[in-house]
């Protein structure tokens, strides 16, 4: 439950305490009795650049570790990162302050800032678990220095596992796979598999590496054998030939955050990876869900005419899509009939998982799932928490177990 934080009702700015900012989320949780609903947030980004100097101390190459001090006027802030301006446009020129990251001051009692901010969000939204992922690494697949992906990802993964995750069992992480280096990605799985708090492994989708390349087969086999989730987390790329024609963030975000996962999912299905790794749990994160109806129909349509180009498939592409997993955010819902049809097309009852994306500008609260009129209560509870518990092997607290889905 929430503490006795006293609201101010004042103007919300970049430094507003997230308990003030999310107080109305807590009201929603109370009205819907979310303390009796098991809720898992698959994707949040509470981290900010203030953690980065500490993370730099976990770089294992001594020369690169020392070189971090050359950045940020000696503070190491932002060291080696390849962020592009796009992410800094999230706040719609000041209209959505948290879109630029949570800047609120916190009391320094030694608890990692990531944990403090996650706890506030967990309490206000009525969550039971939150899976965190850092903003800073979302760009890393496009880093011009390929080996830097391995240095930074390993440092971040170590920091999470050694410093952050032991602090609170409700906070979990999908660890970053340095996917541009397949052997380093395999080493990441070997090194961190089974560590407390590690929920699964994740590829940031903004990159130019086809997911069906032969050098990834050993990685997929390892993850399948270990019963791990492999997530593909979308991100922007404003430099591609097509997206570079989009002159406004609204346009780029609408297209780019879908385009990368559209390409990767198409390659995943058409190259028969679901047949090669039938027990591997693959999850598509943060592309929303409206694209799924399009790509399912489109691939089925073409597959029936060009079956010879996808010879590993034994059923329709859309049927493989019904076996994969999808996070719901940002859930497009201006047309309820289309939303309902899309959820039906991919077996949302068992395959969709709620994600908040907090504190990004287009975050979703659990109420967006709970209030859907066309879902029955079992489907709502599955999407909000039980589907996540099943594929991430999360402990469901005793109070929810009687209601857990079969």
């Amino acid at each position, binding site marked *: 439950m929430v503490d006795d934080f006293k*609201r101010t*009702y*004042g*103007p*919300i700015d970049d430094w507003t305490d997230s308990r003030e*900012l999310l*107080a*109305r*989320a807590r*009201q*929603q949780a109370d009205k819907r009795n979310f303390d009796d609903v098991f809720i898992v947030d698959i994707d949040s980004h509470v981290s900010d650049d203030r953690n980065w100097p500490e993370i730099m101390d976990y770089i294992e190459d001594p020369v690169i570790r020392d070189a971090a001090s050359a950045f940020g006027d000696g503070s190491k802030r932002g060291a080696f990162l390849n962020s592009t301006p796009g992410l800094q446009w999230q706040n*719609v020129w*000041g*209209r*959505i*302050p*948290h879109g630029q990251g949570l800047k609120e001051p916190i009391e320094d009692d030694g608890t990692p800032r990531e944990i403090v901010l996650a706890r506030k969000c967990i309490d206000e939204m009525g969550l039971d678990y939150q899976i965190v992922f850092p903003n800073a690494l979302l760009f890393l697949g496009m880093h011009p220095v390929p080996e830097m992906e391995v240095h930074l990802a390993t440092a971040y993964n170590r920091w999470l596992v050694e410093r952050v995750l032991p602090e609170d069992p409700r906070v979990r992480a999908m660890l970053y796979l340095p996917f541009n280096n397949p052997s380093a990605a395999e080493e990441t799985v070997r090194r961190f598999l089974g560590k407390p708090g590690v929920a699964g492994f994740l590829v940031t989708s903004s990159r130019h590496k086809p997911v069906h390349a032969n050098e990834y087969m050993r990685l997929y086999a390892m993850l399948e054998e270990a019963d791990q989730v492999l997530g593909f987390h979308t991100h922007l790329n404003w430099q591609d030939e097509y997206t570079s024609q989009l002159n406004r963030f609204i346009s780029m975000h609408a297209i780019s955050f879908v385009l990368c996962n559209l390409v990767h999912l198409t390659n995943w299905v058409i190259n028969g990876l679901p047949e090669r790794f039938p027990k591997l749990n693959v999850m598509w994160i943060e592309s929303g869900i409206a694209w799924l109806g399009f790509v399912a129909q489109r691939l089925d349509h073409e597959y029936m005419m060009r079956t010879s180009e996808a010879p590993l498939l034994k059923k329709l592409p859309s049927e493989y899509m019904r076996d994969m997993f999808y996070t719901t955010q940002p859930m497009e819902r201006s047309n309820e009939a289309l939303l309902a049809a899309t959820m039906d097309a991919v077996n949302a009852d068992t395959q969709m998982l709620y994600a908040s994306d907090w504190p990004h*500008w*287009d*975050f*979703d*609260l659990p*109420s*967006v799932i709970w209030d859907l009129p066309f879902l029955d209560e079992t489907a709502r509870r599955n999407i909000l928490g039980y589907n996540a518990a099943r594929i991430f092997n999360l402990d469901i607290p005793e109070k929810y177990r009687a209601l857990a889905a079969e």
Partner: protein
Amino acid sequence: MGELFVAKADEIGDREGRVVADGDLEIGVFRLGDEFFAWESDCPHMGGPVCQGKVINRVTEVLDAQKRSHGFDYVEEDVHIACPWHGFEFNLRTGIHPGDPNTRLRGFPVEVRDGDVYVRI
């Protein structure tokens, strides 16, 4: 039917507001010139604290006679409040979203008595 004291009228500057609460009912009262407007601080999008957001004018795009674009400008007479959760904007005089007239805030009557501002609920 009741009312909530908001503030002394001269404590609320032009284009400024105050949010008052009665339990979970939160109402923002805003001043534009000599007029006051009150809206429930409950964004119709996702329930966000809209009246704690940024006051900013409506943006327009400037076209010339040949319909060529010359960038953005503010519309002086249209003052908006932007919900800090997701940026939904509403006209502070009408409570209506500039892109969809069916998306609107719930309004409340405001009364100024003896220099004090009250909102009737």
